[in-house]
Structures are given as structure tokens and as C-alpha cells.
């Protein structure tokens, strides 16, 4: 494992996490479509076959249910599989395996058969991808009891959350915001590993709280920066872990400002953003000066590249929502 700060993209951080996990634990196996010699279409598995051999990182036939199903069997039999779904919408063929087995096997067997496995899902938009390549599918998994669902917003979190996911005794759906793959950042891999289940305040602020995760955190931060220019102090929380959810950090943040906007890229209806809005309201009702607002994707299929900017939560849309938080009542 590297030590001290290095400049890494999220793609590199994920690659490093896989590499370190495989070196540390010989029961970690990586497989999926094109993850072998090609290194994955996003190169997250680059070099793993060369370094660890064909047995440890390998290509499978093109069948997502088969991939996840085989991972279930390997996890039953002493392995820690890490599988890649090539894009968000291409995990749907594996939905039955995920909902009916990955999520339920520990419970089904009264705890006798745990499934320590990771399903990596590059997700969400912002890369000009064509249809089926940009879905924000986290709600499907977050709604399914038994799945841990995490999503990093920085290279450092990507590294640590993936290490934690691979070490987890439970199955983790690891959602990778693909538009963040390439941006580089200082990462200190020798820093203490934040546990799964912890949100983090990315920016302090006193007037209102933006609650976000994954691909939308950067936009929330930009919005906070813009608001600061206009004299409004916005706090930004990155949930990081969708299941389990860090109610403590999020609610403390919301109570401290009394106003909140949830920002997420997925279509809003019956989404993780709905959940956050609902639970924050339940818990912080009397601290709230205004209803929790949601800035989410519209309830439409993900748009073609030329229109995607209208679907993504934008700085302006976030600021509009903040403006709407009934400041006149102050």
C-alpha cells in the first residue's frame, strides 16, 4: 500500500484499492465483462490480471445475472468476489440475483451464510453517454433490505470505501459516479480509513444545509461557493453511505442551519432523495424553518447527451431551491 499523499484520480484510487485488497487477501477475486486484459472499459481493473494472474482477475461470458450469481456461489465458498457491472443499466439483468439472493442469503440462513462480495456499478451521467449508460440506479438497491450501498465523491473516499466494502462481511453495492473517474486529487492512503456508514461535512455553513452524495457533491459545493459570493453560508454534507445512513451527522447538520435541500441526480420520485427528505423531516421537524426541498433529476428517462445538462442538478437550480426556503419568515 502506498503511503503519504499522492495525486490520484478516482479511477486510479479504485484501481489501487483493488490492487491492495488483492495483495492483502488472496480470497479477493475480480471478474466481470472486459475486466481482464482490457482492464475494464473505465480501466478500473487495469493491470490486475498481469499482476495477480488470470485466476484472480478474469473476463466472464457476457451475462450479468451469471456474473452476480457466480459471485454468490464463490462468496458461499470462501471467496470475496468483486464484480464489475459495465454500466448502471447493464446491472438490471442481475436484479433478481441481487434482490432475491445477494440481499437475502444471510437472513435466509439465519446468519450462517454471509456473502462478502462487492458489486461495482459505474453510474449516473454527465459524460455524454448514450441511453442505458447514465442511469442513477441507487434507489433500487437502497430500497432492498440487506444491501449496503455506498458511493464516493472523492478519490480518497473511493479508495477507503472500496477497501471497506471488500472487507465487509456483507454484500456491498458500490456505486461509482463515472463522471468523477478522471478528476485528480491529493489522496493520503495512509490516513485512517473512515468506516462505512459515516457521512461527512464537506463544507461548513450556517444558513442552510445541502445534503448530497456521489456525483452531486461537487455541484453542491459549487453552489455553496456561489452562494457565499452572495452572502449566504451553505453547509454541504456528503452522505457517502446510503445504507446504512448516517442520521446523526446529517441531522446535526440540518439542525444547525434549520434549512435543508437534498441534491441528487436520480429521478426524484420514490428515490434516496425522498428518503433523506422524509427522514430528516421526521427527525428535525421543529428545527426546520422551511420544508426540506429536493433538487433531483426529473422523473423522465435519462436524456440524450445534448439535453442532459437540463436533467442534472445545476448550481442555479440548487440556488433557486435555497432561495425558496422561506427566508422571508426569518
Amino acid at each position: 500500500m502506498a503511503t503519504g499523499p499522492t495525486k490520484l484520480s478516482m479511477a486510479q484510487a479504485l484501481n489501487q484499492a483493488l490492487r491492495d485488497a488483492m495483495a492483502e487477501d488472496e480470497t479477493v477475486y475480480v471478474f466481470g465483462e472486459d475486466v481482464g486484459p482490457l482492464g475494464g472499459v473505465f480501466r478500473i481493473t487495469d493491470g490486475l490480471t498481469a499482476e495477480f494472474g488470470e485466476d484472480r482477475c478474469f473476463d466472464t461470458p457476457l451475462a450479468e445475472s451469471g456474473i452476480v450469481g457466480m459471485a454468490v456461489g464463490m462468496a458461499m465458498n470462501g471467496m470475496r468476489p468483486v464484480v464489475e457491472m459495465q454500466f448502471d443499466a447493464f446491472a438490471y439483468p442481475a436484479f433478481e440475483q441481487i434482490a432475491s439472493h445477494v440481499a437475502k442469503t444471510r437472513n435466509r440462513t439465519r446468519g450462517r451464510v454471509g456473502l462478502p462480495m462487492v458489486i461495482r456499478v459505474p453510474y449516473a451521467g454527465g459524460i455524454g453517454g448514450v441511453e442505458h449508460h447514465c442511469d442513477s440506479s441507487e434507489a433500487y438497491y437502497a430500497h432492498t433490505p440487506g444491501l449496503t450501498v455506498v458511493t464516493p465523491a472523492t478519490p480518497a473516499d473511493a479508495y477507503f470505501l472500496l477497501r471497506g466494502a471488500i472487507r465487509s462481511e456483507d454484500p456491498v453495492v458500490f456505486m461509482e459516479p463515472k463522471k468523477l473517474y478522471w478528476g485528480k486529487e491529493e489522496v493520503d492512503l495512509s490516513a485512517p480509513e473512515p468506516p462505512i456508514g459515516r457521512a461527512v461535512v464537506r463544507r461548513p455553513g450556517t444558513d442552510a444545509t445541502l445534503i448530497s452524495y456521489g456525483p452531486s457533491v461537487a455541484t453542491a459545493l459549487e453552489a455553496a461557493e456561489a452562494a457565499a459570493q452572495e452572502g449566504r453560508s451553505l453547509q454541504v454534507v456528503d452522505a457517502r453511505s446510503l445504507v446504512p445512513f448516517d442520521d446523526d451527522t446529517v441531522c446535526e447538520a440540518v439542525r444547525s442551519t434549520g434549512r435543508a435541500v437534498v441534491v441528487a441526480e436520480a429521478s426524484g420520485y420514490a428515490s434516496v432523495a425522498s428518503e433523506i427528505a422524509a427522514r430528516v423531516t421526521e427527525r428535525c421537524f421543529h428545527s426546520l424553518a422551511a420544508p426540506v426541498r429536493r433538487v433531483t433529476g426529473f422523473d423522465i428517462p435519462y436524456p440524450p447527451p445534448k439535453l442532459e445538462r437540463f436533467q442534472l442538478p445545476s448550481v442555479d437550480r440548487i440556488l433557486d431551491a435555497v432561495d425558496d426556503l422561506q427566508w422571508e419568515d426569518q
Partner: protein
Amino acid sequence: MADDRDLLPSERPVRLLDETGSPVAGASLPFPDPERLLAAYASLVVGRRVNDQASALVRQGRLAVYPSSHGQEACQTGAAMALAEGDWLFPTYRDTAAVVARGVDPVEVLTLLKGDWHAGYDPYAHRVAPQATPLATQLPHAVGVAHAARLRGEDTVVMALCGDGATSEGDFHEALNFAAVFRAPVVFFVQNNEYAISVPLARQTAAPSLAHKGIGYGIAAERVDGNDTPAVLAVLDRAVARARAGEGPQLVEAHTYRMQAHTNADDATRYRDQDEVEPWKARDPLLRMEAYLKRRRLLTKARRAEITDRAEAVAAAMREGIARDTDPEPAELFAHVFAAPTPQLAEQAELLADELSREGH
């Protein structure tokens, strides 16, 4: 890629015994030895007793439902007996008799249908996966278990069971293909009992046989008379040996028949005539086996009595075990979702505990 035609099954299902229990001439495989046949007979008798006892418990309202393998006991016995101790069995809801033949306590197996919990036995204790309900979904798991074993250099074989209907699911296809590509030591054993609930085989496939699916994956396939215990054993023994020897996965189709309704909740008269069922009674695997053993004078009176007694003892233990009050604790609802409960689940568990305490639990 393998060469074609040797991947096709034989033109007719392999048979060692005819319907009267006499050995057939020119059989393509040798008979299993007498001790194995006697052990198989014992397993048939127990399997039948387990099936009929479970159905009786349903009628008495002690089990919600039971999908019986009555009439398919040769397949159930064969599936379990073909395996060594370190091997794995992947059964479906219909394969209780096979699970029991592998050594799992029937009362534990019936936990699901008693309503206490989902899987009632420890899958690692006898290397038996939970009985699968969503059709064909267990087949990729079987491939994964086999592949993991192979990667570790173990000589484990995995026997994966499914029905004729399940062969239509995408997971059947994906599992067979993965197994073939990775040369995973899996024996896919399809019990073709002619029905998927109400849907007859002709609505399930237009293939010459289900075993003909093997060649499309490069998997050697065979078919067998599924009510002919020695033939089932011989064919499965060979398939397991080949898989263990590194020859890759194997596909075996057993031609058998679902003698009873899908479950007690089903009404088979709505979709099939009793006329169709009658001839199958004469092909009963137990009768055939018994006739053969008697003719060969392998089954002494004493041995027979001993086997019957054992079956009765198993049935008695089932009745007693199912009658036992085993109501699960509500707190268990939250105990196994994750290795450690999330804060959310802890909160929900508390809510329930509070409700229960107020109700005076």
C-alpha cells in the same frame, strides 16, 4: 471447442431396468454393485416415506404446503448418492427427499414450510445449499461454488438440480455457459417430470430433449429413465466422475413424472387427465427396484424390515419434530439482515421490542 456429436445424448434415455424391474439387454452402462443398490433402495423407501409423511402433515394443517417428489425418488436418491462428502448439493423446493438423503434432518428441512424461518438447516453442515425457490437462480451459485473449489485445487463436485420448467429461465442458460467456459465441475441434473405446475413439457420446449441443450454450451449430456434407480445412479456416477476428473460440467436429464399435483394447493385435474397419470403408476421407481432386488434375491426379509423400520422412525421423528412448538423470536427479524445491525435496524428493532413489551411479551 469440443467436437459435436459426442456431446449429444443417446437416442433414448439410458435404462438398466425395464418397467417390470428386469434388466434390459444391451444396456450402455454397467449395473451399480449390489450393496450400492441396496443402499439406494433404502434411500428410496425413506424418500417416499418423507414425501408421504410431509403431505400428510399438510393435510393435518401442520405444514402450509409441500411440493412432493413422490414418484421421483429415484432421482432424489441418485442425486444424493452420487456425491462424496466434500461435494455440494444445490436442491430446489421439490428436492426435500434428496436433501434428507444427504443427511439433513427432515424437520430442519421443513422449517421453511412450517413457516418458522426460510432455510432451516446449516448449508455448511452437509454442504447443501438452501432449497431454491426462484427458479434456476441457484444454478449460477452452484457454478460459483464449483469454481471457487477448483481455484483452490479441491476436487469438489457440485450437483445442481432443477426441473424441466426451470430450463426455460435465463439463469439456466447463463449457468451452463459459465460452467462450460470455466470448466467448472458441476453436474446439472434436470428432473423432467413433464410439468411446470400446469404447463406441460410441449409448452416448455420444442427441443428433441432437454439433454440436447448441452451441445449448445459444449457440455456433454445424457438422458436417463428417471424412474430406473440403477440407471440414474450409473449415469450420475459417471457424470460426477467425469466432472471430478476435470472433464468439465455435465448435463443429465431424467425422464420422470410428477405423480401428484404441483403442491397440495394445486388442482391438477384442471390441466391433465387421470388417464395420463395411470400408466406412470406402473413405472414407480420403488416397485421397479423392489422387483429387481427380489428377483436377484438381494433383498432379504430382515433387510427389508430394517429399512421399513428406519423409514417409519424417520416419519415418526418428522411428526414429533413438526409438532414441537418452535415459534421463532420476533427479535430474530433484525438479527441476520447484516452481520451487525445498522443504526436504522437497531432503531426498528427497538420499536418492535417496545410494542411487544407493552403487549406484555
